[in-house]
């Protein structure tokens, strides 16, 4: 056994409630453990108990007993703990200090005074093990998020820890980057005795490969076997949800396992009646092209959006999704082509365009500035001379209970809601959201899906850039795919996400014609 927590209770300094209560958990050598649960439920806090960041870095009150490789992490100096438990964090940019990849990997060893020859061999070995030899001499700032996270893992492993802790390492990455990181982690498992604990929202990728699961919700920690977790966790991947609905036991973890468990029993499709057809045209994009220098970012994009429509804008990073939004909002002055709003040419000024078609860029929470949530929304209403009252706005964004709070005191999910609310408080007819659910948990995604549908039902329209087809299938009516600046297809959602389509959901791979778990029945 490498680590054991016994009746551990922890409270952050200045908090009113315990973040973790009476936690009992054990980690064996060679374990590959998924830490699952909603945002702000205590996953990060739990991981930080294993390397002593809690309470040594964060302070607060801790009770119970901790044992990691025979030491008490709450009292062992950080320099020593680093050789026992290494940790990789969410943000690629906020965890490195060196200039190049090899220097970054060597940094920890340099600080510990490892001899040069041993250090060289170690660096070579790690670069090979993580498949990043080609990056050796690159400057960190030129790497993609996925590459940086793999470098971070190598840098942590350089000190040969016995426990590897990963705190949502893919939440800031696109699907390609996330896949490369998760595949790397999976490869590490099974080589030697290294125990891995990874907190993640991408359960569909990890549940089938981990050896155990720690479910963390509301400060309570439960240990499960993977199939048990699929049956008990509040939020599970679609395939597990279908398995639960069909009362399969054990709950299958993959599409293949589910098909095998059904053993040829026929499934039937339960479709809700289609919603009303779209209304008048709100926004039209006509042959818009943008290039940065010699680099074309968007080529001749044309489409229109009508009342009641919600478009999911998909495509890999760098395919032009953000550029398209910026061109519509008027942020790119050298865009060619035309943008028409309600049949008329769009005004030139950004503030006038966004009065009609509001844009929420990625991570809008970094621009929060006021000292209360109400002031944040109030400022937008004032700037836009909106008829909407502040109280209505707070209700619409589910923020009434937080109105007097300082945005800085809220959880990341709540901050995101405040920030989206602040950008859209004046209820523009068209919403444009750039990856609004990146790193969010299922509850936040469901809330946003409802909010989007309400908006569309009231005669509005929305375009949402996203990598997440499972949750886009819940709200989108149409899907536009961009690839290298060109619109590759523009299809109704049921075709885009259906079986045999470009990007099928798990439900579609189980039953042709379905795209959502609840549409699959026996």
């Amino acid at each position, binding site marked *: 056994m490498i680590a054991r927590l016994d009746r551990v209770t922890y409270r952050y300094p200045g908090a009113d409630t315990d973040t973790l209560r009476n936690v009992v958990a054990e980690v064996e050598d060679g374990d590959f453990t998924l830490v699952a649960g909603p945002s702000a439920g205590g996953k990060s806090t739990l991981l930080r108990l294993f390397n002593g960041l809690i309470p040594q870095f964060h302070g607060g009150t801790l009770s119970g007993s901790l044992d990691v490789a025979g030491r008490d992490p709450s009292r062992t100096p950080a320099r020593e703990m680093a050789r026992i438990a290494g940790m990789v964090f969410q943000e690629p940019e906020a965890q490195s200090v*060196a200039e190049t990849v090899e220097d970054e990997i060597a940094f920890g060893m340099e600080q510990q005074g490892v001899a040069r020859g041993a250090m060289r061999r170690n660096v070579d070995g790690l670069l090979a093990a993580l498949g990043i030899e080609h990056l050796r001499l690159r400057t960190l700032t030129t790497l993609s998020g996925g590459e940086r996270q793999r470098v971070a893992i190598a840098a942590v492993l350089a000190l040969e820890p016995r426990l590897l802790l990963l705190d949502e390492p893919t939440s800031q990455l696109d699907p390609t980057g996330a896949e490369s990181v998760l595949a790397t982690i999976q490869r590490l498992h099974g080589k030697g005795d290294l125990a891995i604990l990874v907190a993640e929202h991408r359960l569909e990728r990890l549940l089938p490969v981990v050896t155990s699961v720690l479910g963390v919700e509301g400060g309570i920690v439960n240990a499960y076997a993977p199939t048990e977790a699929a049956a008990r966790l509040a939020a599970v991947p679609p395939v597990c949800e279908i398995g639960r609905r069909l009362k399969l036991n054990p709950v299958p973890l993959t599409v293949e396992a589910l098909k095998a468990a059904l053993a040829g029993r026929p499934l039937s499709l339960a479709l809700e009646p289609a919603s009303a057809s779209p209304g008048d045209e709100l926004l039209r994009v006509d042959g818009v092209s943008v290039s940065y220098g010699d680099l074309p970012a968007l080529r001749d994009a044309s489409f229109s959006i009508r009342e009641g429509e919600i478009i999911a804008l998909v495509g890999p990073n760098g395919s032009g999704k953000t550029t398209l939004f910026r061109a519509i909002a008027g*942020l790119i002055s050298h865009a060619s082509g035309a943008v028409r709003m309600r049949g008329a040419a769009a005004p030139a000024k950004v503030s006038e365009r966004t009065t009609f078609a509001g844009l929420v860029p990625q991570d809008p929470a970094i621009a929060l500035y006021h000292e209360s949530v109400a002031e944040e929304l109030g400022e937008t209403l004032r700037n836009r001379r909106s008829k909407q009252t502040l109280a209505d706005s707070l209700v619409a964004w589910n923020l009434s209970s937080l109105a007097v709070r300082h945005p800085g005191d809220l959880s990341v999910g709540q901050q995101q809601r405040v920030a989206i609310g602040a950008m859209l408080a004046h209820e523009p007819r068209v919403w444009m959201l750039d990856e609004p659910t990146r790193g969010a948990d299922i509850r936040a995604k469901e809330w946003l899906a409802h909010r989007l549908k309400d908006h569309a039902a009231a005669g509005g329209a929305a375009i949402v850039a996203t990598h997440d087809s499972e949750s886009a299938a819940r709200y989108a009516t149409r899907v536009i795919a961009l690839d290298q600046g060109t619109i590759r297809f523009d299809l109704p959602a049921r075709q885009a996400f259906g079986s045999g389509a470009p990007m099928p959901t798990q439900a579609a791979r189980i039953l042709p014609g379905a795209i959502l778990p609840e549409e699959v029945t026996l």
Partner: protein
Amino acid sequence: MTLVMVVALTATNPYYLGIVLLSVLLVAAMAPKTARGVTSFRALLIFGAIMFVISFTIGVINGNYGDHRLFTIPGADLPSWLGGLRLGGPVSAEGVVATLTRGMAILSVLLAFGVFNSAVSPHRVLRSTPAALFQAGLVVTIGLTLLPSSIEDVRRIREMRALRGGRGGLRDLPALVVPAVVGGLERSMRLAEAMEARGYGAAPAGPRLPRLGAMAAAPLLLLAASGWFYYESLRLPSAMLAAAGLAGFGWWIVSAARTHHTTTLTSEPFPMHDRLLAWASLVLALATVGATAWGWDGLKYNPFADLPWPRFELAASLIPLAAAWPALRFAFSPAPATAPVLLAPGLSEQ
């Protein structure tokens, strides 16, 4: 580097200053170009030229030492409560020559540092920080690490203000600056956490005695310098004081390097012959300073002593000429990874 500075700031003979200036320009022309280097060197060149013109102009309009009057410009005295400065008046040949000489000196120093700055990457400078300044170096490294994302934040916050219908201008400034500062500080706390998790950050304090020694160096050197320059009879004790001070300082540097036992992945940042040459130029520079302090006037020229024609000696001219050696170095190995050669030897230690 050190040599250029020393020669430029001690020499007053226009021949030698000219040689230094040309050497620096030669090195700049031969040095490998990096994108960052070219812009910063050009900026410095422009800045230097402007400074030269301004100081020359100001020097001329009130440069009224000396007897060799060239011409007179109509002038006026500023009121006495402003210091009674006289503008205009007679312009003397000595004044013009002196101003030109000093202008050349300052220009050489500016340009020499320009070449240095453009050739050496910031991370490289920091890697060469002596262990005694480990923590301070770490602070600056962290700053460098966090810079790019902070600049990006400011750009994005500005865009989001526009998207929210913000009016821009001065009144919108707090909405731009406050989130940028707070966001940056919060990001730095996340970096601090990652650093802590990787087991570094706080280093223990170094041994106390060498630190005391280093601190004693400051008053000792100050006393020594005052004695040396202002009391001719006290030169020998001053020299001894200076030696004691430098010893204390050196002790501190060395002992700190022992306490902070770290290793490096890459071997010597600078090749051997570069290090040798750098040391040689430092020795030459120190020798020049020493000789000048003992009263050697080989590099000197005084226009105010009745405006003589400056002397030129071949031997003395070799000193400023030595500043051009990096150019030769570049000529023989056209593409070194980065140009380390102008580095002051003190920096190449760690």
